[in-house]
């Protein structure tokens, strides 16, 4: 869930021209909120039909996230809970709490171009990647820093990434993830930036698995609330059954 979340970056302004490290830090800092509550739509373009899945998520810092699916009818009531590096899902039809682990983490989430693993990824990229400024480019009519990120540890899912950071709002407008070989695997594009909850937020995001032919998965943030009080019981397995 987090990789989506770090795109919901609020905007701070910095005066000086920062290093890659600093830019990344700012992006991370800006994305950070004690809590977030947001509703979103995921548009999955399949070979046969296009589906829109609506969900509401409660997120506490980096540790925990809880999502409830609201629509369509089939998915309504499905819940997901992420605590640290564990993921559970609950479906009302079965009244079962199922741990998603191992092989299943690599499956696509609701038929989208994102895997559970993609969603589980830790948001704090500054801890995991070294950043280098590669230049400037214009994305969505905004001047952006182009940062090349290379993984500090060997166990990162992507050894390198490229991010385009808005020079003014310090929001990531585009991201590419690369294989060890340097081959481009996935691309995330921000299609629009909106002001929500008093911050600048990526309102419409397009994810694409570039090895596959397909139109990708669109993610639309409908509303977001920052630093609201979320009771702790939300982030418990018991709340999955509620």
């Amino acid at each position, binding site marked *: 869930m987090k990789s989506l979340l770090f795109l919901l970056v609020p905007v701070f302004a910095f005066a000086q021209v920062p290093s890659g490290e600093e830019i990344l830090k700012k992006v991370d800092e800006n994305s950070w909120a004690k809590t977030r509550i947001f509703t979103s739509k995921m548009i999955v373009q399949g070979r046969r039909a296009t589906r829109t899945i609506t969900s509401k998520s409660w997120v506490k810092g980096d540790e925990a996230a809880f999502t409830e699916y609201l629509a369509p009818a089939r998915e309504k009531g499905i819940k997901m809970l992420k605590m640290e590096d564990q993921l*559970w899902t609950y479906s009302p039809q079965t009244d*079962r709490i199922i741990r998603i682990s191992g092989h299943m983490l690599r499956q696509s989430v609701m038929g989208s171009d994102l895997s559970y693993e993609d969603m589980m990824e830790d948001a704090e990229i500054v801890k995991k990647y070294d950043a280098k400024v590669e230049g400037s480019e214009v994305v969505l009519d905004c001047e952006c820093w182009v940062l090349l990120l290379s993984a500090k540890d060997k166990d990162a899912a992507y050894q390198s990434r490229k991010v385009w950071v808005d020079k003014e709002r310090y929001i990531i407008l585009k991201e590419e993830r690369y294989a060890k070989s340097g081959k481009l695997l996935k691309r995330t594009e921000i299609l629009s930036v909106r002001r929500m909850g008093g911050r600048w937020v990526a309102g419409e995001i397009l994810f694409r698995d570039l090895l596959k032919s397909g139109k990708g998965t669109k993610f639309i943030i409908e509303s977001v609330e920052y630093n609201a009080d979320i009771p702790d019981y939300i982030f418990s397995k018991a709340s999955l059954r509620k």
Partner: protein
Amino acid sequence: MIKFLIKGLLRDRSKSLFPVLTVTAGVTLVVFAICWVGGVQTNMMSASAHFRTGHVKIMTRAYAEQSDLLPVDLALVGTDSLLGHLKASYPGMIWTQRILFAGLLDVPDESGETREQGTVAGIAISVLDPGSPEHKFLEMEKSIVRGRMPQKSYDCLISETFAQKLKVNPGDEVTLIGSTMFGAMSMTNFTVAGTVRFGISALDRGALIADITDVQTALDMDNGASEILGFFTDDIYHREKAVDLAEQFNIKNTDPDGEFSPVMLALEQQEGLAGMLDMVGMMSSVIITIFIVVMSIVLWNAGLMGNIRRYGEIGVRLAMGEAKGHLYRSLLLEAFAIGIFGSLIGTVLGLIVSFYLQYHGIDITSFLKDSTIMLPDVMRARVTSSAYFIGFLPGVCATFLGAAISGIGVYKRQTSQLFKELEV
């Protein structure tokens, strides 16, 4: 004269009984052998047909291209009307729909949380309907190790090895996690009604059989199926018919541009089975030829012996002044009658044995201890159309030929010798 000859045949056992018995036995064996070879041919294909290919199979074009991946998202939709159409258009066939899917089977602990998980290969078939042809095709009742057959909605069977791995017993509830036709996650509870052993390593590792209506609901494919299998009512694969059927169906129903338009493939158009069929067909013809040749010689010999046995009788008849030509012709006629009669009985007997073995078969499980692969464990004969007449060929011709050759001896007999021979 024919009446006279027949009377003679009927009244003299050595003239009739023995030769007829020989012809009968020979023809019975040949008819049976032909049916058996046909059966072996069918046996070899029946496992493939029942488990995977059908005699014909309908899929969407997109599914057919990737069928190895079991892509439920490319499945057929509107199968109810398609099935109705098929049943109306091809009344000589049995049609059945299946869904093949991959997923995860999750076993809960007491609190309903995950205790064990395993990947599962699912087969959804019409199993709750007692009249479903699938019971015969997959022989599930026979394969049950523990528990019972599914009797109500959301009952399922899983393979015994898999059940042991997941520590699941009949009666336990498990959750199937799969992906719907539209890619959404689907979770559905099933009750393990029983466990089965297929004897195919790949399936025994993790297979689940459930009723198709339940799986349609689970995978959000209402009125949809991965494939529709068609079987000839005699459960025998007829090559030309099947290929022809597929061709006709595709001309009418397949849209070359529509990736979801249905396409029909005959058994031999799948998995490279045509080559296999050709090979088996070739071997069968060789075997049948050998049989017919062998039997012809046997009956030819029997014909020769028949006349030798009647040496004395022929002598008397010649001595009494019967013309050699007349005698020879009567011998030929008798041989012909014996041939026809023996072949008739032989064909009937051969067919009876073959029909019996077509329906009951020989159970060979005792020969195959600890079999690990899917094999037809009952060997059956198959009565082919040629079995009805092919026995007559050697049965009549060879007997006739034998009599004709040995009968020539009649002309060599010298009247002067006859009485000397008849003295004793």
